[in-house]
């Protein structure tokens, strides 16, 4: 089976839309300085009519995808029936639901704008990306909280490996709006910076140049803390995958799982091979797809472990050693 290569990247964040500069700011600890993307204008990224009323998350997803495609060497030649889009998002849907219900309250439910309703449907982001870029292979949206981008990568990899598509646009996106902000504030959850990050995945034989490879991805559930499930799961994973090949670990989700993850990897004999960078040691506020960009930038083999308190766990291993 061909390896899956990352052949394009793009991102739009409050700290800019150039991937190398975004990574620099993450490393310098400046990424959290701003939460919202100020003066965002979709027309700066794509010249297409009819997008004024679409949701914020769909707009920034389109922008980051436009950047990724623009930097790709041969996307103009793709057979669009063999291209898929895979979106991972979390609470952004609430912004559109609250806007819709505001409108219903103000105008009356009978007269609510028909333009707003499609934005409330959870897959509107992948739908709009598909329409704007004429993607005809498949469009999918995943909603597994902060592990959503990893599920989107996993699903894209499945479609590529089984030869259903040749090219996958995988997007991690979360806009900031009234619904998501209210929920996070009330729950005392931290605020993710608004962001969209897109990676292009292709089978190695289709890739002209690449940023790295998706070597391994897996997810599992641990619905009770300290139930030993994660321990068993990681043991099974590292029976198949040589842990000694990993140079970097990016983990830390500001929850009870962090101590377990740290101790699991510290207990392994090969721990000296890891570099637990200060800027990646507490990554709760660094969205998953930006962690992927950070890992690719390491130019080595990196492992990302992402968890949340309610039970979802994901592990992704990327290799970017020696790639240009």
């Amino acid at each position, binding site marked *: 089976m061909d390896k899956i290569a990352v052949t394009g990247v793009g991102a739009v964040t409050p700290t800019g839309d150039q991937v190398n500069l975004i990574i620099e700011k993450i490393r310098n600890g400046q990424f959290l300085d701003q939460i919202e993307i100020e003066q965002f204008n979709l027309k700066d990224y794509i010249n297409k009519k009819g997008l004024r009323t679409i949701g914020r998350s769909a707009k920034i997803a389109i922008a980051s995808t436009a950047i990724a495609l623009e930097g790709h060497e041969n996307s103009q030649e793709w057979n669009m029936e063999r291209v898929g889009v895979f979106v991972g998002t979390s609470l952004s849907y609430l912004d559109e639901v609250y806007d819709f219900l505001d409108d219903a309250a103000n105008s009356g439910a009978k007269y609510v704008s028909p333009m707003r*309703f499609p934005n409330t449907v959870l897959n509107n982001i992948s739908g709009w990306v598909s329409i704007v870029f004429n993607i005809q292979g498949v469009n999918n949206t995943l909603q597994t909280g902060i592990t959503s981008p990893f599920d989107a990568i996993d699903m894209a990899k499945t479609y590529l490996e089984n030869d259903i598509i040749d090219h996958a646009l995988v997007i991690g996106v979360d806009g900031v709006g009234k619904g998501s902000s209210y929920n996070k504030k009330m729950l005392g959850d931290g605020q993710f910076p608004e962001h969209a990050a897109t990676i292009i995945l292709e089978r190695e034989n289709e890739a002209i140049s690449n940023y790295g490879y998706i070597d391994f991805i897996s997810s599992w559930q641990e619905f009770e803390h300290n139930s030993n499930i994660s321990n068993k799961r990681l043991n099974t994973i590292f029976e198949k995958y040589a842990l000694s090949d990993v140079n970097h670990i990016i983990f830390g989700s500001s929850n009870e799982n962090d101590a377990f993850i740290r101790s699991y990897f510290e207990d392994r004999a090969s721990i000296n091979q890891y570099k637990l960078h200060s800027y990646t040691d507490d990554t709760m506020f660094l969205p998953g797809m930006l962690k992927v960009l950070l890992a690719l930038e390491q130019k080595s083999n990196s492992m990302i472990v992402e968890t949340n308190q309610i039970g*979802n766990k994901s592990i992704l291993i990327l290799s970017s050693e020696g790639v240009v």
Partner: protein
Amino acid sequence: MKRVVVTGVGVITSIGEGAENFWDACLNGQSGISEIKKEGLQLVGPKFGGQTHHFNPSNYVQKILVNHIGRGAQLLIASIRHAFEHAKLKKEEYGEADLFVGTTMGEVIGEYTHSLYTNNQKADQSLLELNKLNNILVYACKEFGLYGSAMLISNACAAGNYATIQAYEKIRNGNSKIAIAAGTDPFSSVAYYGFNRLNAISPDKCRPFDKNRKGMLVAEGSGCLILEEYQSARQRNAPILAEMNGYGVSADAFHITSPHPEAKGIISSTLKCLHNSDISPIDVDYISAHGTGTNANDKAESMAIQKIFGESTPVSSIKSMLGHSMGAASAIESVACCLAIRDQIVPPTINFENKDDNCRIDCVPNTARELNVNKALNNSYAFGGTNASVLFKKAE
């Protein structure tokens, strides 16, 4: 590649709970449409929908959870419980199973928390937690002690089929022995208001493919299929209802709510499904239609069916009985396909009175039909122009 079989199914629908009750009602052409009752909902026109009024979550969900979880998770847990029983799966056998769930609107808790937000009130923490849609998965995992991978696929009204595809690939590629594919959606006020504003809701009945069809009816429900690796299922003497043979997916890239007028995406997903399953159109004995009862969907879908299969392949829409249960719909329709293969009979499209020249298909009008069903195709199409077809066959 491994063979993938369906060993159990479960449903919660407006016409019945559990595979056999649902199937009896389906074959009898029973309607589950009733007057809508929902707290806080303004009736802005049509009064009817497909709610599961008799559903009692306490019959399915453990006490410690039942009052703390959303209706989407309750419906999901109930259909999974039915499916496990149907598949004769014991707790010690399904812990490692992977879970793939499709939904359109999720828990719809945003409808409640929005009014608190508007009134500048604090919301209960546990209510807000339900807005994190992955809780739907987590509660199902807690209820059954599942610790495999779990994905929430929010591909609108095709979500159930996408969940089934993901479960199928997981087993076919040898990464799992058992996978649970499901769809769930509670009755959503936002969907009701939105479809009403798009003039897509019928004032009374859902009449798919009828000349006088007036639209769909919003419903709720859940459907679940247990997919297993064939040899593993044989080893445990599992009942085998059907084998999953292949699938096809496509995107219209045309319009966020309307299908392509020449059914381009629909034709593409169907042809890909036939190709992926290595069969010809003539091999398909029955088609479970998306069949929403809207003018645009039924016209485009009929056009695609005519073009690929001609006019004589039996096609029915069980949405005529259940209403449109959104992300659950295609999972429930896959359940119907598997039971049609098991029992060699196909369900009807009820409320059919007048033929439409734009829908020249055999829609199995009003009465179930006994038939040799060796291969059944289930089509689903959704907002965002995402299309998914799955094919089941009799397991030899």
